[in-house]
């Protein structure tokens, strides 16, 4: 497959053959074994993410958890302890006898939900405003980009803290607060992609053939913004998940009766002397998920644009 592709390009397309010469000079050879192939390198990190998504969706249906239940006989049991009812608490229990593992599973759902919903909303606002600014130009562009500049004057977690504090703790409010602080990046990327696409030959050709503005937008401009938006999504979703956990840690995110990783770490902070596992376990889960997203994002960029 690899060799037929390269021989094909040397015969028919001189520009791409010179491009492949340049890349071989830079030291990138075509992969010979499976674990060197870009697709494998991508999915090696995508797979743990799929596992996380699966656990977040299915886990709470299997593992029983009741956020307000108190089990005094099983307080502060260390990881691996056998409880009085014969069950085993693999990751220990917290100060009211809740199973830490069950809390983790429940928290995974909140992280995934907030991450996905925030990215969808912020991405949609960013796509619409960015394409509008890039395609229309003029005052629309000026107003939207000045607004973006003003918003970027806030450290983003600060604006999220302000909005979440005013709205009060709830999952929907966290999503709102984070979407309002995150649309700007999507908007700028969509605008840049639109500006680039506007000057491409196929768009000029479509325009010359009499395509209307809406047709140009929906068939040519918007599709060209999707790939760059997906790439920054992988950066942004990690930031959003950390921001949700930070807000919940401060008590401004999820409400008290809803388990989330940030809230669990905050609970564990008061029990560091005798129950280190309460604060430690959710943080490990959080770091691993965000790390996998980060490496997956890097690999996705390599995969979509091998020249970089």
């Amino acid at each position, binding site marked *: 497959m690899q060799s037929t592709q390269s021989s094909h390009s040397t015969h028919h397309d001189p520009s791409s053959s010179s491009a492949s010469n340049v890349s071989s000079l830079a030291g990138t050879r075509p992969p010979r074994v499976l674990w060197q192939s870009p697709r494998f390198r991508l999915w090696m990190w995508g797979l743990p993410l799929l596992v996380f998504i699966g656990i977040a969706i299915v886990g709470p249906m299997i593992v029983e958890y009741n956020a307000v239940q108190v089990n005094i006989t099983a307080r502060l049991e260390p990881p691996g302890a056998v409880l009085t009812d014969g069950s085993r608490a693999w990751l220990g229990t917290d100060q009211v006898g809740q199973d830490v593992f069950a809390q983790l599973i429940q928290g995974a759902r909140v992280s995934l939900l907030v991450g996905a919903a925030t990215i969808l909303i912020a991405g949609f606002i960013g796509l619409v405003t960015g394409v509008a600014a890039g395609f229309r130009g003029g005052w629309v562009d000026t107003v939207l980009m000045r607004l973006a500049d003003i918003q970027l*004057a806030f450290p983003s977690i600060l604006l999220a803290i302000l909005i979440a*504090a005013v709205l009060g703790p709830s999952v929907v409010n966290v999503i709102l607060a984070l979407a309002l602080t995150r649309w700007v990046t999507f908007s700028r990327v969509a605008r840049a992609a639109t500006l680039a696409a506007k000057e491409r030959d196929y768009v000029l050709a479509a325009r010359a053939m009499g395509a209307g503005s809406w047709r140009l937008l929906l068939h040519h401009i918007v599709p060209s913004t999707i790939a760059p938006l997906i790439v920054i999504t992988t950066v942004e979703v990690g930031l959003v998940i950390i921001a949700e956990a930070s807000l919940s840690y*401060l008590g401004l995110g999820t409400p008290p009766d809803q388990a989330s990783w940030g809230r669990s770490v*905050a609970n564990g902070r008061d029990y*560091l002397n005798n129950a280190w596992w309460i604060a430690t376990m959710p943080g490990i889960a959080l770091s691993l998920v965000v790390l996998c997203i980060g*490496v997956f994002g890097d690999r996705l960029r390599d995969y979509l644009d091998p020249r970089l």
Partner: protein
Amino acid sequence: MSHYLVKRVGYSLFVLWGALTIIFLAIRLAPGDPAAMMIGPSGTQEDIEALRERLGLDESIPVQYGRYLSDVIQMDFGESLWLNRPVASEVASRVAATARLAGAAAAIGLSVSFPLGIIAALKRGSLLDAAISVASLLGQSVPSFWLGIMLILVFARQFQILPSAGSSGWSHLILPSITLAMPLIGVLTRLIRSGLLDVLHDDYVRTARAKGLHPRVVLARHAMRNMLIPVVTIVGLQLGTLLGGAVIVETVFGWPGVGRLLIDAIYQRDYPLVQVAILFITASFILINLLVDLSYGLLDPRIRVQ
């Protein structure tokens, strides 16, 4: 240069005005009565009315906005509801602690990420490069509130060699500043690595090498200087992120800075204090970005002309 200066300062003032307006709107237009929220569920109707009048919340929104802007220009921010002291002096008394924390974190961040990024770029593709790149991604992935608690767990509780809270001596500064520096180290190391890799392929670097200059001279005199220009911008932006991160790190370590004051004010529903603390952090961020922009103009004369 002076034209460039005036333009940049003017734009920063515009952005500051916009930020002031967003803070005003976020607090005034939130669902519910801000006065009732500040008093809490225990207050009577008379208490709420009295507070509305005291804060001028009984006026129309445009009148409130006009008064708010004129108060800000006169640097008159009113009194804290919770501490019964002028909010401006309350924030001012916390500035030094935040500056010390952010300064220490920036120093740690820069002094660790430059060597790491340069080594990774020079040894591109090696095991060391891979290790540095995983470590820097990890630095960005670990949430700082949790990293802080883990450092407390290990160094304050387990080994008892460093204090977990307070701010009296140098030893108190170590854990919070490392916590705050960690994401910065992650971002900068990656940035310096890719920035250096970009310029190492440029013609002038090849020329410098071809004429037989020592690799260290090529690196220091040719490659590093050109790599610095994009890096300085990101450093400026990251310093702002540092101020945001300080809010969380100060809360974890009980560090008496502006960030912790902000979170305490939120818990106390002290909106005048919340407003000023956020305003102060944002204004500092805008000022840092302005200084970065100006130094960018100094570093690269081409920018001033545009």
